[in-house]
């Protein structure tokens, strides 16, 4: 693998506008043109409907770590929901209206004082997209994928997370239908927080398992 594995600079254009229309003032790059052409052919030939891609973009835009955070906060505050979530992650998410637009299933991995979970996809980039949105670049790149299964504690340390020797580190490598979501431990000092306040503490990286959920900072409502 070269050092350029997954570098994401678009060599011809620098897009300043996050919501640029398909045709912009910059010349579309080679792959942009290929994608437009491929998509148009698929539609012209009747393989896919004209609006399907636009609709799916809306679906994808609605998926982000805030959804996962709400699932975690609900699990922290509702023991019955937590039990259902640990039994079947997908159906529990669907209870909250988080639909799964594909055939993946979800296993929620519970962090405890004796077990710390970490998720990775060494072979590609499997990630619980319906509930977390799209993964960060580093999750898809070689260093994380190669090392998380080989030296998870060193990887965690790079994120500032030190796991004591008496805590078991459990790495889940996705390869098929199951996707994983880490259910982090609820931090101290949050007993008085509402579910919404709890959700605001939960970050994407905590649900991947590279960091814990940090306790509220002094001055936050508690």
């Amino acid at each position: 693998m070269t050092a350029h594995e997954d570098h994401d600079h678009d060599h011809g254009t620098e897009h300043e506008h996050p919501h640029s229309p398909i045709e912009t003032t910059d010349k579309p790059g080679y792959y942009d043109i290929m994608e437009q052409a491929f998509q148009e052919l698929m539609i012209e030939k009747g393989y896919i409907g004209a609006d399907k891609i636009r609709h799916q973009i809306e679906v994808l835009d609605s998926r982000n770590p805030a959804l996962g955070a709400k699932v975690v906060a609900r699990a922290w505050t509702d023991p019955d929901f937590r039990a259902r979530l640990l039994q079947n992650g997908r159906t529990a998410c669907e209870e909250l209206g988080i639909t799964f637009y594909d055939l993946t299933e979800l296993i929620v991995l519970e962090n405890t004082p004796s077990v710390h979970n970490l998720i990775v996809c060494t072979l590609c980039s499997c990630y619980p997209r319906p509930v977390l949105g799209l993964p960060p670049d580093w999750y898809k790149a070689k260093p994380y994928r190669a090392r998380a299964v080989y030296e998870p504690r060193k990887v965690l340390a790079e994120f500032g997370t030190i796991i004591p020797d008496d805590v078991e580190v459990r790495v889940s490598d996705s390869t098929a239908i199951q996707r994983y979501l880490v259910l982090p431990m609820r931090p101290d000092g949050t007993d008085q927080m509402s579910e919404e306040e709890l959700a605001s503490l939960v970050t994407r990286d905590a649900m991947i398992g590279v960091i814990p959920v940090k306790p509220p900072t002094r001055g936050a409502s508690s």
Partner: protein
Amino acid sequence: MNGSEQLLKRLPNDIGGLEAPKIEQTDHDLLPWEKRCHALADILDFHKIINTEEKRRGVEALGSEMVGKLTYYERWIATFANIAFQKQLITPEELAKKMAEVEARWRSHI
């Protein structure tokens, strides 16, 4: 014997346990075409025109040089083209003509 069989036996994406440097915690907002490409992949999989596992296999089949030099979504769209040709859903000429048309359309707007 030149040891080339490792290229077949160990696919370019099979990197668990290999030496690798420090993790650079980078991320980027998807470019519009990348987002379209991701949505396209989901639609192709839903209808099983090109399923997700075919896409994975197709990316592997690009070979280590392309896997190393193309970015994540560039690998996807190149793979979709290859697989669509293999399945005779479109021809290389059709795609090339349509790409020229898309580019001409852009030029006529400037």
